[in-house]
């Protein structure tokens, strides 16, 4: 064994250094999780309504709310939801006036895009979304039509969408809520409406409309929970909670309740 | 080299000159070292020995002249020449962070000695220089004598048939010096090898086959020590006069026999008859008198007109070098 001993002598210093570094990685890099535990509640900002992510109904509160509840349970704290009215009305997040004091987590339509990441960090992805179109009857082509557009989910690529619509010579009518969009379609003011895919699916189901996703050229994104940048310990706790929910089937059950399937198992819907 | 193929001599130096700035370090030096010879280059510091050695081991180019290692020109075929040379430099050239064995192993790798042979030779050479017990010690923990022994062992790991040693015993205590010579003697008995050594310790070259005396870049004499003593040596009287008057009187009277002056002493060429005559004549003018029998020291004195210069400067130079090396630990 002299060779082993020599090897140990040579690499001993290196091993000590690597060991010390691994120990360092166990240190908590910030105080975010400690704050949550200290206050006993996970505070989340969500829009007042954003079906199917946030519904506002007590027995069927929406995917994001149920997920947040699951996360809070697994961290061992309560959930404190603050509905922010502005989140549903205005697509500029600055006007939502949400700050670190208001809540630790943002939910209800946060997508994992470069734009979002400039402001926020994100939890694990749990569903995919993109732009979708709804109409009273199936459309083969949107060229030259008049379409209502609802873009209050801030992370999706609005510039790409407007470029696409302009190339298709679509007349754009901006709407401020789902009700306004559906009203326009059923009232005949719009030939169809474009909005975020999950919302589109929900609206189509509720009002018996046709729905299809827009072409692949418009990037699709993952839905996530939003976190403040730099809250690594909280982020890790959320990731752990998601892992546990995925393992015990809670995640799939929540998604199934709203007609969705877990990532990677979805069946592609109709596309334009 | 197999016997009978009339091999080129191990070392041939032909009219080599080398100048450093205004100093002519080597001035047309020529000699030939014979196969299996123990050859010594004797000269004071600054005589050009190290310059010559650097030319032989291909790190320095001569300004003119030619040096051949087994017929290989050191300027035109340095890589081939280096394979035959085992070199021990005056300054240590070991990696002090590696262990004794690792230093030898690295040398073997660098000289392309195959693995199994390399390991066997390392063991043999460590045994030869009595460092087996130190094989796994880091080189920086060795004494300077041990380092020198290690360097000798290293020079023998590959197929070196010509060993060049530059002042191998400089800066070592008497015991270490004796050890190093005994290794070299033993080695010559075991291996087909030619040894060229430079030194300024005159007593160390007595056991050599031939001695080449160099000074100021020129060869003054080249022969076996005994022959040198016979031709250039001679008995000498070392006299310390009583006073200045006595000194003047002696100098005046024996000007033709004057060999040199060393401090208080006067050196006179002598023989048995002269000693008697001198005592009868000037017996009262001297404080002390020594009869010096022929030795390489007297040979050197005869040839150069002075004793080997500043022997102690070598020591202090090494000390300075060592001090500089001490800076290494601050890196």
């Amino acid at each position: 064994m002299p060779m082993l001993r020599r090897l140990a002598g040579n690499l001993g210093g290196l091993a000590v250094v690597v060991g010390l570094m691994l120990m360092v990685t166990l240190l908590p890099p910030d105080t975010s999780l400690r704050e949550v535990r200290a206050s006993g509640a996970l505070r989340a900002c969500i829009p007042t309504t954003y079906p199917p992510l946030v519904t506002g109904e007590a027995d069927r509160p929406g995917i994001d709310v149920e997920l947040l509840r699951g996360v809070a349970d697994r961290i061992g704290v309560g959930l404190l939801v603050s509905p922010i009215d502005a989140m549903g009305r205005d697509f500029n997040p600055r006007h939502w006036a949400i700050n670190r004091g208001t809540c630790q987590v943002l939910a209800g339509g946060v997508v994992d895009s470069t734009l979002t990441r400039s402001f926020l960090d994100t939890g694990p992805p749990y569903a995919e979304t993109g732009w979708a179109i709804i109409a009273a009857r199936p459309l083969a082509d949107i060229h030259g039509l008049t379409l209502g557009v609802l873009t209050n989910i801030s992370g999706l690529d609005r510039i790409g969408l407007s470029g696409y619509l302009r190339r298709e010579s679509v007349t754009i009518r901006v709407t401020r809520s789902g009700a306004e969009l559906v009203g326009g379609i059923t009232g005949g003011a719009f030939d169809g409406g474009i909005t975020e895919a999950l919302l589109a699916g929900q609206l189509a189901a509720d009002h018996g409309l046709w729905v299809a996703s827009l072409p692949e050229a418009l990037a699709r994104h993952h839905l996530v929970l939003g976190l403040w940048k730099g809250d690594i310990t909280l982020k890790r706790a959320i990731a752990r909670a998601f892992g546990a929910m995925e393992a015990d089937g809670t995640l799939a059950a929540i998604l199934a309740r709203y007609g969705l399937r877990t990532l990677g198992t979805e069946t592609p819907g109709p596309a334009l | 080299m197999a016997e009978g193929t009339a091999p080129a001599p191990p070392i041939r130096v032909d009219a080599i000159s080398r100048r450093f700035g205004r100093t002519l370090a080597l001035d047309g030096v020529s000699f030939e070292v014979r196969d299996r010879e123990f050859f010594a280059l004797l000269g004071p510091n600054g005589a050009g020995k190290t310059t010559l050695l650097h030319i032989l081991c291909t790190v320095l180019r001569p300004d003119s002249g030619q040096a051949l290692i087994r017929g290989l020109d050191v300027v035109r075929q340095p890589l081939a020449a280096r394979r035959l040379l085992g070199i021990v430099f005056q300054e240590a050239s070991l990696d002090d962070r590696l262990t004794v064995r690792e230093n030898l192993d690295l040398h073997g790798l660098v000289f392309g000695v195959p693995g199994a042979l390399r390991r066997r030779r390392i063991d043999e050479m460590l045994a030869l220089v009595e460092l087996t017990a130190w094989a796994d010690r880091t080189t920086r923990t060795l004494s300077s004598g041990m380092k020198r022994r290690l360097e000798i062992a290293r020079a023998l790991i590959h197929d070196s048939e010509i060993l060049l040693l530059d002042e191998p015993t400089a800066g070592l205590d008497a015991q270490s010096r004796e050890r190093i010579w005994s290794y070299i003697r033993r080695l010559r008995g075991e291996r087909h090898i030619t040894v060229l050594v430079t030194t300024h310790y005159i007593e160390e070259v007595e056991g050599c086959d031939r001695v080449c005396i160099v000074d100021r870049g020129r060869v003054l004499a080249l022969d076996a020590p005994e022959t040198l003593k016979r031709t250039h040596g001679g008995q000498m009287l070392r006299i310390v006069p009583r006073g200045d008057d006595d000194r003047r009187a002696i100098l005046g009277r024996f000007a033709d026999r004057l060999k040199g002056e060393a401090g208080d002493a006067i050196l006179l060429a002598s023989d048995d008859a002269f000693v008697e005559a001198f005592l009868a004549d000037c017996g009262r003018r001297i404080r002390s008198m020594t009869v010096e029998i022929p030795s390489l020291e007297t040979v050197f004195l005869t040839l150069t007109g002075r004793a080997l210069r500043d022997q102690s400067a070598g020591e202090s130079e090494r000390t300075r070098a060592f001090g500089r090396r001490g800076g290494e630990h601050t890196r």
Partner: protein
Amino acid sequence: MTAAAPTPSLAPVSRRSPVLVQLGGLYGLWLREVKRAVRDRGQLVGGFSRPILWVLILGIGLNPYFRGEVYGEVTFVVPFTYLQFIFPAVVALNIMYTSVQSAISVIWDREFGFLREVLVSPLSRSTVLLGKVLGGATVAMAHGSLVLVLARFADVPLTWGTVAKALGVMAMLALALTSLGIVIANRIRSFEGFGVFSNAVILPLYFTSSSIFPLDPALTRAQTRVVYPDWLVTLVEYNPLTYAVDTLRGVLIHYNQFDPRLGLLIMAVAGIVLFTIALLDFRRA
């Protein structure tokens, strides 16, 4: 043992092919560099403390100032936390220190004789230099990889694929920087210690490589020059390390400020040019 019959092991080495000799020597020299580095406690301490200080102390210390406070308000334009942003640069920093440090040992080799031992061996000068460069680069890569151990802490997710790609980029960077170090070392006659290097070469290169502050790619050139003074932008743009750090950042956190191929190209060209210069110096020495 009679004088005429040498012991079997003293029989001549069967002549190895010259290529094998060079390769064996290359391996020996490489191994030497690695062994020296592993035994150099000082270097290990540096390799450990730099990432700890930069990632742990600086990254954590500044994190609150770069995190979002109000949704939609931008204080730090990059879509990452500060810790994630500087992480790849700290990898580059560790590589830089170690590469230059290894290269500087050429000075010690020269001062204390080891170089002479190699120069009288049958190895060609290019083999000797290549051994030094490869050894130094290996050690530098190892020190760079030490930083990767902290990835979890900095919240940089690593997959095997990412690590493999990162190692490739790190190898190129380490080779180029070691060659640079040797070019510098060859030109230095008296050595005043490593501090000079660290202050005169490494830190200036590092700080002007967009390693600790971003040049926002979303901004145009004109806009960038509004945010930062002209001279600083110019320094950053002319610093080749900027592009190397950028490429590494692209691999580790998928964020590029420039074309990632530019970084690869610059590292390859710089590596080849610097190695050639070092070789010419070496041949002359």
